[in-house]
Structure formats: structure tokens, C-alpha cells
């Protein structure tokens, strides 16, 4: 990597004056052109699901012209997020983001979706922001524009713009608020007669109820229930456990769900619930489980909130990086070293997919996955397990093309204290992990929830 930078630096000092000359010529041409016609910018498809790729094409530029492609999104919290790449048009005056290389910006190289995954808050924004869509019935609007030149592109009005709609919900997906038998959450149902395989979908702590993954899963053919489980104080661990079993049964008994094809997808704290339910429940049997950013820490007999209180007693041991971002990884590693603190994952009898980032600074998820593998191996059940561990990826493994958040604001559940938690990950590697893992998660779910043969440990 260092070698590459040196070469680039040398090349830069040679090509820079040439580029400046080229840029000036292009400015003249472009300003002459803007009196005539602008370049043509197209994004295809202009309306897509968030996990679908698009092609960004600029035509009708002067040949060999330096331009910057920029994306801009105003979030529901009214923060502005942007990404950009520096390009040079070919002899036909075309820039194709899918085919050409970006020479700088928030991403470099050949990155068809770089304008989305490399987004970050615009300079001057509040710190520790995270981009998450709350209202999934409307699309995420991304304005893509092309500007002349590279440096200082922001000072110039765009030459052309296009608007891309990115949807979590496919047409025909239904959204239903659930408040039944004490269970709260949101159910997403795919279009069509059904019945469908289904998923209990659980996020981690500190986020509130996030529905977008369930909406996307429904758009991919699964009834998906985004469960709200951190809003209440449970009397005991048993009562809390029953809440999750009830939630699972609500899905299982739904008229549009195939009862023996219900799985669990959990991330972070949600993955712990997935392990817990699957290992200990006598009344529910998930057909398969997916655990993203795997966590199996659950001191026996504790509610989640109580467990969290125990965790917070270790915060003084937390490591703070050079930016004062808090990492739980190292003290968590000590905690899970004691198996009595953890879910007995060796009891699990269904196929499992574990998805983790090797640069996870929040939780020792890769070590957790190792431990799960070891315990299953002891029980002769290692064939049930698939593990994906991505170098350079952090804790927040989201659907593809979502921006990467290395550290974000977090409100400690019990104390309401605000910190900036270090999740980890390096943007390019993390984004590749998001793209690759989603495809593999869908493929795993399709195999176990859609295909006829069922894979059971006792066969």
C-alpha cells in the first residue's frame, strides 16, 4: 500500500500541471457548452431497492475532461451526507462509474456503487452520526451530480444532476404494526398469495426499533418481523424469554407464514437473543438462524437490561482510542472467557450462519464464532455451522451500499450517558463485507427456508 502511494505521489507531481492545463481547457469548453447544452447524466435504474446496483453514466462531455461525480443525501435527521469521485472522460466524452476508475475523493478505483457506500457527513457536520432510515415507506433520495474539475468542485454549480430513489420496500410489500399478546414490533409481508417463509428480525441495543432490514427481507420474499424488545423492563429472565417465544409464535401462527419455515436473524445483541432462544426454548424451533456480529454473552438468569448493567460495571476497563472513542472489545473478551457467562450454543440443532467483522472493536465477535465452532465440533454438529469473517470489517454490518460507520454516538441504556462507541472497520473493506455478506445471507436463507429439503442435525 505504501509503495502504491509513493508511485502515485510521483506521478501526481508530473501529471498535475498537465491536468491543470487540461482542466482549464475543459472549463473553457464546458462554459461554452453550458451556453449550449450540458452533459447528460443518467442513473439506471433510477428507482431501485437498496441492495440493487445502479449504473451512473455521464455523456456529452468534452473528451479527456476532468469531472467530479458527487452524491448528496439529506437524512431524516436533516444531516447532509455526501460522497464523490474524481474522473476523466474518455475520447467520446463519456464517464462510466461502473467501468472507469476514480482517482480520488471518498473512494478510488473501479467502484460502481462508491457514490453510496463511501458517503459520510459533509464537512462541518455533527460528530458520531449514523445513517438509518426510519420511515421505510418512502425511498431514500440521493442526488447525483457531475461537476467540472477535481479540486474545488464544490465551488462550482453542477453541470447536470439526476435523482436516484433507493427503496427498502418493493411495490406490494405490506407493513403492519403488531401489538399482540404483549409483543410489539412491525411485520412486513411480501406481495403475493403466500404463504411465505418468515424471519424474526432483531437489532442490537442503542438504536430503537429499526425496520429497514425487515422491509428489505420482505422485498426478498420473507415475512419479516422487526421485534421491539428493548422498550420494557421485564420482571425476570423467564418472563423476558417468554416474550421472545411469544414473538416467534406470533409469526409462526400468522396466516401468511409457513409454520415450519421460520428462522431468526439477529445482529449484535439480537444475535445473542437468537442463540439464547434456539439453545434453550422447548417450544420454538427455528429452521435456521443468522447471527450478524455474533454475541453469546448472557449471564444466566439475567434479563437483557440486567446483563447490560453487569456489562457497564466493566466500562472503566474500556479502551479509548486516540479520538476518545470507546471500545468494549477488550473487556468483553475477558467476560466471554468464562463459559458460565455465555449461552450454551452447543445445544443448537439447526443450521447457523455467523457473519462477523475481523476489525470489530465493539465485541469479540470473531472469537465468539470460534467458540461456537468449537462447541459444535465437540457435539459432532459442526456441519450445521457456516462462518463468514471479513478482514477489515467492523461491527455494524448493514445491508449493502449503506455507508460505513466506524464510530457513532450511543446512549448507554441504563445511565442515558452519551458516548461515542468505536464499532471498527475500514470503509472499503467494510463495504465489501456488507455487499458480500448480504448476498450470502440471502442465499443461506433461500436454501434453508425456501428449498424443500430440511437440514436437521438429528437426521
Amino acid at each position: 500500500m505504501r509503495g502504491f502511494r509513493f508511485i502515485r505521489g510521483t506521478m501526481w507531481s508530473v501529471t498535475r500541471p498537465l491536468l491543470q492545463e487540461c482542466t482549464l481547457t475543459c472549463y473553457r469548453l464546458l462554459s461554452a457548452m453550458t451556453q449550449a447544452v450540458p452533459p447528460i447524466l443518467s442513473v439506471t435504474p433510477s428507482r431501485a431497492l437498496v441492495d440493487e446496483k445502479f449504473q451512473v453514466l455521464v455523456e456529452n462531455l468534452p473528451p479527456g475532461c476532468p469531472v467530479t461525480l458527487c452524491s448528496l443525501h439529506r437524512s431524516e435527521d436533516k444531516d447532509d451526507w455526501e460522497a464523490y469521485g474524481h474522473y476523466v472522460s474518455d475520447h467520446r466524452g463519456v464517464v462510466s462509474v461502473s467501468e472507469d476508475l476514480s482517482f480520488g475523493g471518498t473512494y478510488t478505483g473501479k467502484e460502481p456503487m462508491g457514490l453510496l457506500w463511501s458517503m459520510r457527513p459533509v464537512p462541518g457536520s455533527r460528530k458520531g452520526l449514523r445513517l438509518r432510515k426510519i420511515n421505510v415507506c418512502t425511498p431514500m433520495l440521493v442526488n447525483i451530480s457531475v461537476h467540472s474539475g477535481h479540486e474545488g468542485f464544490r465551488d462550482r454549480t453542477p453541470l447536470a444532476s439526476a435523482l436516484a430513489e433507493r427503496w427498502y420496500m418493493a411495490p406490494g410489500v405490506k407493513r403492519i404494526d403488531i401489538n399482540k399478546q404483549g409483543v410489539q414490533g412491525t411485520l412486513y409481508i411480501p406481495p403475493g398469495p403466500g404463504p411465505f417463509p418468515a424471519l424474526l428480525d432483531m437489532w442490537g441495543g442503542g438504536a430503537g426499533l429499526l425496520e429497514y432490514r425487515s422491509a428489505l427481507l420482505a422485498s426478498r420474499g420473507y415475512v419479516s418481523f422487526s421485534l421491539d424488545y428493548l422498550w420494557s423492563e421485564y420482571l425476570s429472565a423467564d418472563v423476558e424469554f417468554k416474550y421472545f417465544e411469544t414473538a416467534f409464535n406470533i409469526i409462526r401462527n400468522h396466516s401468511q407464514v409457513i409454520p415450519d419455515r421460520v428462522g431468526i436473524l439477529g445482529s449484535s445483541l439480537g444475535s445473542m437473543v437468537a442463540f439464547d432462544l434456539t439453545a434453550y426454548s422447548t417450544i420454538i424451533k427455528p429452521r435456521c438462524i443468522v447471527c450478524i456480529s455474533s454475541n453469546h454473552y448472557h449471564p444466566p438468569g439475567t434479563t437483557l437490561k440486567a446483563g447490560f448493567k453487569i456489562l457497564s460495571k466493566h466500562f472503566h476497563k474500556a479502551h479509548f482510542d486516540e479520538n476518545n472513542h470507546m471500545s468494549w472489545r477488550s473487556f468483553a473478551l475477558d467476560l466471554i472467557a468464562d463459559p458460565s457467562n455465555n449461552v450454551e450454543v452447543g445445544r443448537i440443532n439447526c443450521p447457523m450462519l455467523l457473519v462477523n467483522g475481523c476489525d470489530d472493536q465493539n465485541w469479540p465477535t470473531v472469537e465468539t464464532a470460534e467458540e461456537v465452532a468449537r462447541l459444535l465440533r465437540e457435539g459432532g454438529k459442526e456441519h450445521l455451522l457456516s462462518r463468514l469473517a471479513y478482514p477489515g470489517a467492523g461491527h455494524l454490518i448493514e445491508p449493502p451500499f449503506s455507508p460505513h460507520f466506524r464510530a457513532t454516538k450511543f446512549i448507554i441504556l441504563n445511565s442515558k450517558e452519551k458516548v461515542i462507541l468505536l464499532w471498527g472497520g475500514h470503509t472499503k473493506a467494510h463495504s465489501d463485507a456488507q455487499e458480500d455478506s448480504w448476498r450470502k445471507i440471502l442465499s443461506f436463507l433461500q436454501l434453508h427456508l425456501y428449498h424443500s429439503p430440511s437440514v436437521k442435525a438429528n437426521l
Partner: protein
Amino acid sequence: MDRKQCCVKLSVQPSRGLMDEKFIVLVQNALPGSQLTIRALHQCEDGHSWEAFGHYTADTTGTINVSEDPSIRGTYSGVEQMGLLWSLRPIPGSKPGLRMRKKNIQTPMEVTISVYQGHQTEGFADLVPLSGVVVERWYMAPGVRRIPVTEGGLTAALFLPLGPGPFPGLLDLYGLGGELVEYRAALLASHGFASMAIDYLTSKFTIETGKMVDRQYFETAYRVLQQHPQVCKSRIAMIGLSFGTSITLKMAIYSEIIKLSAAVCISGTHVQPVDGSVEEILRFPYKNVGKTRFSEKDEVICRDLMLPIPTDPSLKADVGRLQCPLLLLVGEDDQNWPTQESALNIKEMMAQAGNSHLLTVLSYPNAGHLIEPPYTPHTRSSNFRPAGMPEKVMCLWGGQTVEHSRAQEDAWKKILVFLRENLYGDRNPTLFSHL
């Protein structure tokens, strides 16, 4: 419910597309070798239901890919990626003479695509599909704005692409049916042209005064478009279908004010009284109303009303005087207007005048009169009431569905290329020669 085939997965990508975009319809997880029917259902704005279907056999992996696999029979057959759209027709038992045209282009056309067990041909309403998805087809890309235009007495709608512009402009005219037909202009704006759809037969002016508009109306439209800050003054074209062609040629050739960079004439003729008002041009064919013929189904065939092509130059727009490129689209099975004969004559006239380098003729065998944006269902005949006439007649437009649909797809591609070259194209190639 047939449980043997549970969990058949149907997907359409993209699930939201523009009207001229293709999609991929995929069935997965079916029983290998099983017979399946894929069907599209659409309820149009007037409440009529339209359907299309194809019979398929799943391969050894239990997959059907409509882009690669043939439909054995149905409303389309063979490998037809978009057959589920272009072969849509009113469901059995519908009123005859229906035509699908979207009025509100700010909402999408919704199509439900489903897969059924077996090879079904009817009674779909009583069957439960194995799987179904909803697909949205849009005339307007995100960011395109619709601006109603009433300036200067116009009844029009301007569709502006997103961005600073300036954009080349387009004046968009449909035919004798009148009303404000917006869908093509909206779609053209989605491709980067500031497009103004114009109602020139049932405009507010005509409704209120009972009088037909004349040349000034179109010249006003041109001026309003030209003066818009986001429109390129010197790059304006006109596109017309049917009678819209007559207006387009009249303006392109004879207007002192309208200076077009290009003209697209679909299913039209140059036969018109040269010195006639718009009203006179409109009434001209009716002088020969006796030449109306009827098909065996009693559909009205109007193509002979303007035949033979006159030799008298005062009865034909003088295409030899055209100074802008002209793209002429002809359906060779047009039963409504003599477009093929007109095209031949236009070619001759321009060859004689020495400006035939401006002319491109696209002539499609077995295509009919209504050459619309791609995947629009083919209408061979429909109940039609020309604006100002008291009654509807069953009008034969012509065309055979498969060839007509291919023609629409090809024509649209070529119209976009033609418009892009002439409106976005560089007029000064020397500017870039040193790069």
C-alpha cells in the same frame, strides 16, 4: 392450495422501472420440469383489466428466466423478455375497442405478475397463484417536474428534467383524439429533454370560444418553451403522431417564428392544403369521406381518404423546403392514414429538392398507426372519437401485435438517438480537435 409447489419464488428486477426499461422475470425453486404459467395483470385507470401470459417449463434447476426461456404459447410465444407487457390485452369478456393510455403520469402503472401451476389459459381470477409480485412502471423519472402551462392561452404541460440545464426543448403533439396527452413528453423528459405536451384540439380556448386554434398557438408554445430559463433557445425539436405530424410539418416548413433543430413525424402524412388553417387541414380528408372502407368486423378504415397522394403541390407540405433533419416513422400496415405512400412521396420530393440528406425513414412491416413508447400494448382497433365529432367509431389502426411491438421498441430507441444527436450533439467539432 397445491403444496407440492410451495415456496416457488418469483422476482422481477427492477421492480420499479421506467416505461421503456426492460425487466428480468425470474421463477426459482419450482419443481424441475414443471409446467407453469406466468401472467401479468393490470387494471387501467378506467377500471378495465388487462392480462398477458406465457406458458413455460421449468428447467432442471427449477428455474424459468423469461429473458432466456421460451414461452410455448400464451398471449406471446418464444423468448420474449417483455412479452408480459406488450402482449397485454383486455381480459375475456371486456368491452370491445379498448385502448390503454395513462392520463395521470405522476403515478406509476402497477402490474401484478404471478406464477400459476400448470398451463392455464383462462379463469385466472378463480385460481390461486403460487407466487406474485407487483411491478411499477413509470413515465416520469425521479426529479422530473411537471409544470402546467397556461401562458398565452395554451393548454399544455411542460416536463423538465432535474438539474440546472439548460436542456434542449421538445414540442410534443398527439393526434385527432385531442385532450392533453402527457405520457410521451414525460418519458422524453426522463431522457433529458424539456418536453411540452400540447393540447391543441380541446384546449381551454377552443372549449370556451368554440374556435379552433391556428398557427399562432403553436408559435406561442414555441416561444414559451424557448423563453424558459432552463431551455436551450437554439435546440428545440417537435415530435408529432398522426395529425400531430401535419402540424409539425406545417410549422417546420412554413412558420417564420418556429425554427426547429429536428422533427420527428410518426404515422403521418404531408398531404395538407398548404395555405390552409389548422382547421382546414383537419377538415381536408373529410372531403373524401365516401372513400371510407370497412373491415369484415365493421371497423373504419380511413387510409384511402387522402389517396391517391396528390400531384398538386398546393395540397402537400413542401418538404423540399425543410431545413432541419426529419425522422419519419411508418407502420406499413397503417389502416388509418396513408403513411407508407406519403413517406415515398416525401422521399421523392426531397430528392428532387436536394435536401434528402435530412431525411431518415424508418418503415416497419406489419406495424400499425399507433406507434407508441415501447411495451405499450398494441391496439389494432379501438373506439375512437375525433375531437369535435359527436360519435365514437370503431377505428382500424392496423398492425400485427408481435411486429408492431418490435417496431415500437426499435422506433423508440432510434427516436432517442436521433433527438440526442440533433439536440445534444456537438455543433462545433473543431473545438475539441486538439485534445
